């Protein structure tokens, strides 16, 4: 199985300044009673995007998400904390995001995001603060070079776990790579039994 290879891209940001945005915010649990991964975009940040009557809150920065030119989410520290639900990256991707930038991103969310082509980008505190203060700014993300460029003169590096990065750049699914270790797995099982 292969995915669309992850290419360098430029887009505008949507900023959520809150720290510790948990996966219950990203996709509330009431949307998890599904056996499919499709259709979760509607539930993405539902209670942030919709009022009690189910109308889109125009004042929410997330109201720009579906326009197509705001594919980068900038958020406060410890983004994606909480549950292991992979529904969180599925929902963000379907809403139109291609990358999340924060000072730090929670481990399980990061791992899930990488497996689905939603790029988690952890930047230094200064760049993070600049991005938090400048919603809507254009940002260029290059996974090959592991660089983030904001405007003309602000470029910073980030690091993605090398194997996940390779998989994203080549459009390869890690399960294929894991299956190639079947021989080693058999040897391990035989040695233990």
């Amino acid at each position, binding site marked *: *199985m292969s995915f669309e290879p992850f290419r360098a891209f430029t887009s505008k940001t949507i900023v959520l*300044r*809150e*720290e*510790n945005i*948990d996966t*219950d*915010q990203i996709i*509330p*649990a*009431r949307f*998890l*009673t*599904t*056996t*499919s*991964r499709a259709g979760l975009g509607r539930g993405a940040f539902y*209670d942030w995007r919709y009022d009690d009557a189910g109308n889109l809150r125009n004042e929410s920065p997330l109201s720009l998400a579906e326009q197509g030119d705001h594919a980068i989410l900038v958020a*406060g*520290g*410890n983004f994606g*904390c*909480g*549950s*292991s*639900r*992979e*529904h969180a990256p599925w929902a963000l991707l379907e809403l139109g995001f291609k990358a999340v930038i924060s000072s*730090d991103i*929670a*481990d*399980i969310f990061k*791992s*899930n995001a990488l*497996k*689905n082509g939603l790029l988690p980008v952890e930047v230094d505190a200064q760049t993070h603060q600049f991005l938090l203060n400048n919603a809507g700014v254009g940002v260029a993300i290059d996974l090959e070079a592991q660089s983030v460029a904001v405007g003309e003169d602000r470029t910073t590096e980030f690091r993605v*776990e*090398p*194997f996940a990065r*390779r998989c994203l750049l080549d459009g390869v699914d*890690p*399960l294929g*790579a*894991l*299956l190639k*270790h*079947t021989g*080693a*797995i058999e040897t*391990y*099982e035989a040695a233990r039994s």
Partner: protein
Amino acid sequence: MTNPSTLFDKLWERHVVVPETEESPAVLYIDLHLIHEVTSPQAFSVLKERGLKVRRPDLTIGVADHSTPTLPVDENGDLPYGSPEAKAQVEALGENCAVNGIELFGMGDPRRGIVHVVGPELGLTQPGKTIVCGDSHTSTHGAFGALAFGIGTTEVGHVLATQCVFQRKPKAMRVTFEGALAPGVGAKDMALAMIAKIGADGGQGCAIEYAGDAVRGLSMEGRMTLCNMSIEAGARSGMIAPDETTFAWLAACERAPSGDAWAKAVEDWRTLVSDEGAAFDKEVMIDASQISPMITYGVSPDAAAAVDAAMPAPGNESENKAVAYMDFKPGDAFTDQAVDRVFIGSCTNSRLSDLRTAAEVLRGRKVKDGLTALVVPGSEAVRRAAEAEGLDEIFKAAGAEWREPGCSMCIAMNGDKGAPGDLVVSTSNRNFIGRQGKDVRTVLASPATAAASAVTGKISDPRPFLETLEAQGK
């Protein structure tokens, strides 16, 4: 001479199928894969699409717990699911398990319960094992000296297909609780005190080992509560070296080794300790004797304080938002806050000892008028044991509801939830905005604190209730 190793190093090394390199994470073997209805269906779909089989159905167990109703069958004999989708999800788990030859603890099975309660009580959870589940509270199983962590659905598929995951080795962190706990203070208070100290991301990238006298003094159930909350500090796993307490628990479990295999297993399990002088990347010391009964006052588990303290002033934008959501005024005593609902349950605090503590507080007392109290045992086995002791009668006499086992109001995806604006004192693990229902305000606490709050109708210090019991010679 080999370098001294941590417990975590030992667990990790035993399960490396292919070592980590700069280009590739380690291939790590998984001894026990627990699956539930919410995070597994999409993984089975991938296997089906790719024509792959479940490699080790014998190391996989299915449990229905998240979407399941906690009310009994209705007059038509139907289970009152929250929605047709919830029912379909539970049925899909049943079908996926049947097709792939996976043992299932489904609706009506006497072994069913919350996945993190069931594994340990059957003895499926054992020292030295690697255990994963598509659920972040899988860290619970580390209480037995296992390496246990939550995974996403893609990884559930990986484990189904290969019995392995790709993993980079996390850093090792040790949290030592020195000294002894004061009366009325328990494992939940220890967990909240630690998270308040190190922050909701204080354990990020780390595997935590809990050590110290106060940890050694905990029952297995208390140890599970402590390890369970590791993820609320950002750590995917928490663990405690096995000891006589661990072996005594397992000796009574039907799926633990028996006969000659038992002696051999215990001999091996005794080696699962951090060696003298083993190095940790991070060390945290906590004086257990200074821990009070704890509650949370914000929308992240690290916003935790002693129950007899007052609401602190917010320090930044996120805290301003939390204060506005919780509607607590800075300077107000927590114990002045009126409570609408109490939830005693979840993989954190729904085991027999949790229910015994809550029952001791509620015995001969009444739940405050107008307040709803829900008690949800962690499993069918916990329910049977509690009923055999008459705990259900104590809860019902006090005016609390006694329900069927499941995750219930911890994740509120089965229909059990609070009403908008409710203040809920909950023994669960997350106080996130909307977690227990839209606009519900969650205060995390121990079973003793939750039960005391149910009686008074305000957030309450449990110690006076427990002191009365002590004075009566109980």
